[in-house]
């Protein structure tokens, strides 16, 4: 009931926004500031989160998520799952054309899956579509995905890069050069990319949603420096930025609430998670008691509300507030120094121990590192902070050379991709930076993939979380809230909690 009410409300809101957008008129160039230069324009090869910001407007996906994270039709208009859960049949939208004029149809969908699964093509999507064994073209507007076994995360997987359909004609012609002139079916088409300078997209006049998009052009510009990104929004040089530095949230919220403010701050529930990996394969954290001692020293409320000034929720699981598997009854343990000392005693290190915590550069990372350092020191645990660049961090954690590492995850709408690879054998050497395995966890997570009902899945995830809360391969710290800093000129922007900026409903009022 609540969901239906929410949908109606969302429908009214979207309708209202679109009416408002129509009143603002068409045209104009939206300038979007990004926190990094998107490295690749090929969704099947992309590995950077920031790439997805541009893709939202360049490519359509088979399905999309709305602002309540429900799956909604996009290039697929409807879908059915066979009773045995092993065939998912997609009905495709008719009359859609790629930016190069070639038609979108079932053959194109099949080609895209083949491209992602081709062993000779270095696709970053291969593992995401691994459960799809066979793609059958039923008719030009119907495609059947044959699965090895039921796989509940599939639909959500298709709302992201794996569901983005590239033009087969262009992909075949360009090969690995596709990223230089990407072609999709999205509301905007590619014009140019100058590395570290800008990416320009222009309106797709043949877009399949009548009357959309409203903007004439989008220019993305990278601003790796947090302060510079915010300053450019304030000066009016850009109209929206994808990431707002958490330590500035309180100040920006205050400025945005002043009369005559030229920007607004939009907030959404959290989508990503942050915490500390403890390498369980080498000392000191191969000792569970020491992991438990370290965990007991941490005050998650202080981290979320004092260090991050309320721009995050304290966390004690992999499922952020506002995502489908979030469990509101799951409690965050209070800080407990006597317990930490007890665990140290039991581990035979009553006076504590020392360890090195890797962090990547950045104001927030250092602030969190220092907070954890001082909290742990109260129980005699000496945390040395070591700042390393991201590539080095990945190398250290992939090869399990580290002791502890502060690293999070940008989050996915389906809970499976927020937990599965992080705590199972399959993720060792990549996502599982603890080197942790547990047969019980493996069984429960594999079972959750077979279940279609989110309530049942949530129960399985709760059991896993209980085990992880005792084993502690990862110290959950906080869920970052999702913010967008937007000029008051921007109208009709729908803020989806995944943080991805979809601009087809957006219009601009004159400067």
């Amino acid at each position, binding site marked *: 009931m609540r969901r239906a009410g929410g949908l109606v409300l969302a429908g009214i809101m979207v309708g209202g926004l679109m009416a408002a957008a129509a009143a603002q008129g068409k045209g104009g160039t939206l300038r979007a500031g990004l926190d990094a*230069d998107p*490295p*690749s*324009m*090929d969704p099947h*090869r992309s*590995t950077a989160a920031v790439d997805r910001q541009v893709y939202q407007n360049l490519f359509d996906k088979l399905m999309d998520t709305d602002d309540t994270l429900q799956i909604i039709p996009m290039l697929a208009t409807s879908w059915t799952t066979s009773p045995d859960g092993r065939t998912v049949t997609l009905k495709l939208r008719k009359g859609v054309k790629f930016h190069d004029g070639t038609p979108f149809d079932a053959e194109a969908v099949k080609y895209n899956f083949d491209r992602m699964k081709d*062993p*000779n*093509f*270095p*696709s*970053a999507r*291969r*593992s*995401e579509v*691994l459960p799809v064994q066979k793609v059958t073209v039923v008719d030009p507007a119907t495609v059947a995905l044959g699965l090895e076994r039921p796989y509940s995360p599939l639909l959500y997987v298709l709302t992201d890069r794996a569901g983005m359909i590239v033009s087969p004609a262009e992909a075949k012609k360009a090969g*690995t*050069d596709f*990223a*230089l002139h990407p072609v999709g079916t999205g509301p905007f088409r590619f014009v140019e990319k*100058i*590395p*570290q*300078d800008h990416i320009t997209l222009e309106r797709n006049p043949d877009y399949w949603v009548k009357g959309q998009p409203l903007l004439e052009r989008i220019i993305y*510009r*990278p*601003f*790796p*420096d947090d*302060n*510079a990104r915010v*300053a*450019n929004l*304030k*000066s*009016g*040089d850009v109209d929206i930025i994808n990431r707002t530095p958490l330590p500035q949230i309180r100040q920006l919220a205050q400025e945005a609430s002043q009369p005559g403010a030229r920007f607004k701050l939009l907030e959404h529930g959290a989508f990503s998670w942050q915490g500390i990996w403890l390498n369980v394969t080498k000392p000191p954290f191969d000792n569970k008691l020491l992991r438990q001692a370290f965990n007991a020293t941490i005050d998650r409320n202080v981290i979320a509300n004092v260090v991050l000034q309320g721009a995050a929720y304290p966390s004690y699981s992999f499922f952020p507030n506002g995502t489908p598997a979030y469990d509101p009854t799951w409690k965050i343990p209070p800080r407990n120094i006597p317990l930490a000392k007890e665990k140290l005693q039991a581990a035979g290190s009553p006076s504590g121990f020392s360890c090195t915590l890797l962090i990547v550069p950045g104001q927030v990372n250092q602030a969190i590192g220092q907070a954890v350092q001082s909290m742990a020191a109260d129980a005699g645990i000496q945390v040395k902070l070591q700042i390393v*660049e*991201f*590539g*080095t961090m*990945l*190398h*250290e954690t*992939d090869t399990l050379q580290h002791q502890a590492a502060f690293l999070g995850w940008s989050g996915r709408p389906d809970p499976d991709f927020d937990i599965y*690879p992080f705590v199972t054998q*399959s*993720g060792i050497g*990549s*996502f599982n930076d603890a080197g942790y395995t547990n047969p019980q966890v493996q069984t429960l997570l594999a079972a959750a993939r077979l279940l279609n009902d989110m309530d049942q899945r949530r129960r399985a995830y709760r059991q896993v979380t209980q085990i992880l809360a005792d084993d502690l391969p990862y110290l959950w710290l906080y869920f970052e809230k999702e913010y967008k800093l937007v000029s008051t000129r921007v109208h009709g922007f729908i803020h989806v909690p995944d943080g991805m900026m979809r601009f087809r409903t957006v219009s601009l009022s004159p400067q």
Partner: protein
Amino acid sequence: MTRFAVRRLLQMIPVLFFVSVIIFVLINLVPGDAARLFLGEEAPPDALAALRHELGLDRPLYVQYLRWVGGMLRGDFGHSFKDNRKVLTTVLQKVPVTGELTIAALAIAWTIAIPAGVVAAWRRRTAVDYSASAAALTGLSIPNFWLGIMLIYLFAVHLRWLPASGFVPLGQDPVLNLKTIVMPAFVLGIVLAAVVMRQLRSSMLEVLSADYVRTANAKGLGERVVLVRHALRNAVIPVITVMGIQMGTLFGGAVITETIFALPGLGRLTVESIYGRDYPMLEGVVMFSAFAVLAVNLVVDIVYSLIDPRIKLAGSGP
């Protein structure tokens, strides 16, 4: 002069060769697997192998090195790991940005430093000298990123006179080009001005106590003539050396300034290529910077001889 230039150009070849070896070795010593960074965290081993093969990373190091150098000799600097973009085209795209920034910063530095240095030396141990020195010390001490952000807040956010960031090519819109370059050039120029001013002051002091200056004064020449024609011209030689070194550094990329002002120059290309383990791009940009530094130094040597006829360029004799 021509023979000198040709000889110096030939001398660059072994230097560039050593640079190429060093950069190649260093890049391969840095931890981190390019294929892993490009394929993401959950890449299956066969996909990684396919990508390493595509990028040529599965070949022995000496083969990789020879292919790279061989390519360069044919004018092919390779393709970016990220999106297969041509390295040379990308590097050359950045040159106008960094080049203009360097020249503008240099112009600002000279404009401030030359009068300040001359006056400080001429009126040494007076309030003028002390305040010029204090100003120079301040200029040296202000962090680039802080000054940059303060300028943005003043001129772009509050006064709205200048754009906060970006680069518009000179040919496209000269006025806007000037507006986009003035703040970053000032940030770089102010530090450079401080260095040049300190250098010029001390070399002026030395020259001013020289015999020929005393002679010039005794001849009854005007103070201005003695200062500018006799003293400054001789004092400026060491300053040019400093400028040459500084300019080389600037041309290698003013990373922080480029980042704050979102300028797509060589500095940011270098840093992002390091972070992304984009080896061909990084190798290309470092080779280019090395070449630029050598070229600037050659120009500096030629300028010496123009300013001071006593300096004979080896090989350019009669």
